[in-house]
């Protein structure tokens, strides 16, 4: 069963995801898949749902960073100069600036109508301090993206 198809009613109004639906989404996400039910519910409760329209900008390069985005449904393009990457449902982005405390290093725009679940910087840090396994998962992802040490 595809939960995402229940999201939009016929008149295209956005239904608010329940706590359980968010927990299910987190269970499928690579960062949180090892966490137990209680932790998933705790994190799900802090996630804020947001909907962006097609071609709507999420943030600009050099903008101050406060949140991390998880794509529940839709497609996003993140770009800087001539480079761009396309992200789909279950991907996440915008966490780099939360860790390095710098403004956004790239811009992000929706390619289609997109539903996000977002976490604020404070909550991300709090959750990682309680569940270091999430930080380990992030490191695992980063090390596969940058196989050669110090490669830029």
């Amino acid at each position, binding site marked *: *069963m595809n*939960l995402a198809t229940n999201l939009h009613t016929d008149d295209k109004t956005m239904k608010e995801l*329940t*706590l*359980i*639906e968010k*927990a*299910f989404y987190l*269970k*499928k996400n690579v960062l949180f*898949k090892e966490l137990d*039910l*209680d*932790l*998933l*519910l*705790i*994190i799900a*409760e*802090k996630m*804020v749902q*947001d*909907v962006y329209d097609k071609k709507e900008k*999420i*943030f600009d390069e050099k*903008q*101050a*960073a*406060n*949140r991390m985005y998880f794509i529940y449904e839709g497609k996003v393009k993140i770009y800087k100069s001539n480079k761009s990457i396309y992200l789909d449902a279950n991907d996440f982005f915008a966490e780099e600036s939360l860790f390095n*405390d710098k403004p956004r290093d790239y811009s992000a725009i929706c390619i289609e109508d997109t539903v996000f679940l977002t976490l*604020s*910087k*404070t*909550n991300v840090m*709090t*959750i990682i*301090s*309680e569940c270091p396994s999430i930080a380990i998962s992030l490191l695992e992802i980063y090390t596969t993206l940058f196989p050669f040490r110090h490669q830029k």
Partner: protein
Amino acid sequence: MKHFFRRLLGIYPNEEKKTLRFALLVVFWSLGATCISTLTDGLFIEKIGTSLLPKAYFIAALVMISASSLVLYLLKYFSPYQILMSLLIIGSIMYGIGAIILLHPPPVLFYFFCKVFSLAFLANLIACSWALIDNYHDIQDAKRTYALYNGCYFLGVIFSGCLISFLLKPLGDRFLFLLGAISLVAAMFQLKSIALKDRPIHDETLEGVFTGDRKGLFYLVKKIFSHPFVFSLLSISLIMQLTITTTEFNYLESFGNAFQNVSESKLTEFLAKTRALISVFNIIIGVFLYGRFVRLVGLRNIALLPALAFLLLYSKWLSVDSLMVAIFGLVCVDGISYTIEDNNHNLMLNAVPCKLKAKIRIINDSFFEPIGMLLSSAFLLSSSNKLIGLFLAVIMLTFACIIRATYHKSVFTNLKDNAVHFDRKIKHWFQLRTKKEQKELKKDLIDGLLSSDEKVSLLSCEALLRLKETAYLSHILNAASRFSTQGKISFLSLLKNSSFKKDPDVQQTLIKWTHSSNNQSLQSHLDLYFIGKKYFNAPFKTINDLLCSYEKDKIILGLEILSETMDSEHLDSVLSLIKHPCITVQRKAMSVFSKIADPKMKITTSYLLDCLEKVSDHSFRIKCLEALMSISDPSLIERLIEMSAYFRPSERRKIEELIVSMGKDTAPTLLSLLKDVSKHIRSRTLAGKILSRISLSTLQAHLNETIYVEIKRAYFYFYYANCIESKDLSLLVTGLKTGFYSVIDFVIHLLSISKSIEDCELLVRSLRSKNEKIHSHALESLERACHRKIFKWIAPLIDRHPWNEVVAGYVRLFGKKPTLNLPTLLDHLQNSPRLFDRVVAEDLRSVYDLSLFTEPKFELSNEPCNQFAYG
């Protein structure tokens, strides 16, 4: 001179330029907008007359409501900066066009349009300007500067009055229109300068400052009604508008009666002079006194002042209708409501949830004035206007009391948006929901059972088993039957820990699996599941052989049997297995021991504590703590709390539950741990937290003496950490800074624990936050939690106070100025209870020849402290 003006206005060092930019912005737009507003008022009366005035007000009210609705809608997509800039552009263009039109005598409709436009424009300009100011100031900044900006508004009004008085006759009205347009253009440049030079203060609920919120009007109304503070704040605003209009009517009526037999111009002169005098006092109070008054008395107490003033006014007015009472009415309207109440409102808005703040401001500043005009025009037709005024004053006082009671809770609620409740379980989440929401969640869980994704399906099974939903057991078992082998194995471990372990339907299903599956792994897990039944009466030797085996699998089998049979005859074997080299065996052994532990096993506590100290595995520690909870030995408290300094947060929470379950007898031990400066700060904090739960009165009785010592230490660390500039002494500076942070964390924890603040960790984390809005909300909450004297002591250390206030604080506490040189400072650190201080002192002594350092080798820095003294 700079220092003098800074002290006079009550602003901090390095704030001058930012404050000046915002002050100039307010002066420019208020000059332009109020100049045209006053001019159009006069032109309307001259060219059209008073007969069409009620119609003009009516249309103006409708236009104001429409314009404000448009601004509210636009806030979903645009920032206050963009909307304010657009308003200024529109205003300057319109007034520029107006100046051109006035070259030739315009039609009557022009003056009507100007009147309506200027009213709507001014109202929206005020609202958007304040919404922008909110984005650049936190609540602590607001206390210092908002009254100043309000004063700048009145300054703009005074300048516009002067311009009209002196320039209208010689230069004409079109020149003043042009001046108004130029003033608005100057405001635009000032706004641009602010956007380029000043940094907005972000709210973490939005991306950057300028992201619109997509929620509709229904959501906004629902949020307002569900938040007592926001509802009361809006209600008091509306009541205030009604009271202002009623009072204006009443005092004008009284003045009319008093000046009945005097020439007409005398009344106008009297009104103009009284208003001018009140405006001067408004500026003095707003610019110089209000901020200081707020810091002295507290915002929530000042909130009662306007309501009390109006109540006093109408109590007198009902019995005596004299000129003095009417003048007091004028003071209440033009003075108290425009200075005290407006400033109160601006500051109180910081306690509104961040997502609603801009919208609440627009509603209040743009909607309530016209609504107030419309509503009061309806009931002012009656003759009992003073009684109506008294009634309104009583309602205002009621709402003011609600605001007073809910203000700090609202501030802390904003902080709690960032609270993460790691102690909550699934049952708790369900209990927090309404019946309808619970039903929806259960439906989601049932749908999850049918999911093609096995992880989701397993999660649903776990949730329903933990909720003990007997009605859904058959659904759970059907879903589990479709799982892969690995899924079934995971499901078995869920069942073992659930209350359905011995349910006949479950047993039947599992027996079916035993017969239908050939998978060896699944079979062995099923065997383990039924092991209790199989080995229920197994002889002692059989189990003992398993436990003493060299093979890990046999040991685990033996332990599985014991966890089912709960047989305490093998206690010694289990205890020895707790120190087995294999971590899986350790975990299993500890899990078994936690099930069989009871208060008679106090002899084992020392052994368990040794294991707890040596093993860092999380699940081992949790089980060990559960075992210690069952044993309940008070003698282990001290050692346990000392150990907790290096434990994970969830393990510390477990220790807290463990010791709380032992009851009030532990209070003396906890108190001595709390006061012992040689213990780790985290241990002392945990001791304080537990003490607050078992005996809050004991903690509160000893709080001041404990806090006083720590605040002195904090000042010591802070002062010397900030005045050493030598790069060679960077280790010393680091040591002093860490010392400061750990001590001040402890102080904040204790203060919030003693006031039973729900989430003390949240307050400490928020005070450390680099986000200014979070930091300022936390300060506001801490102010409520502390005695005023204690807050005054610690404020220079946790807020952006000037350096001289830190030094003054040091002198107050120590009785003398700081004078230590390096050798003496290192001597102090060598005798410090903190290990790190002693290490740093030793290290520096070994590196430097201190005979060369007889004079102070480090210099006092004259720069004010860091952006945040703390964090």
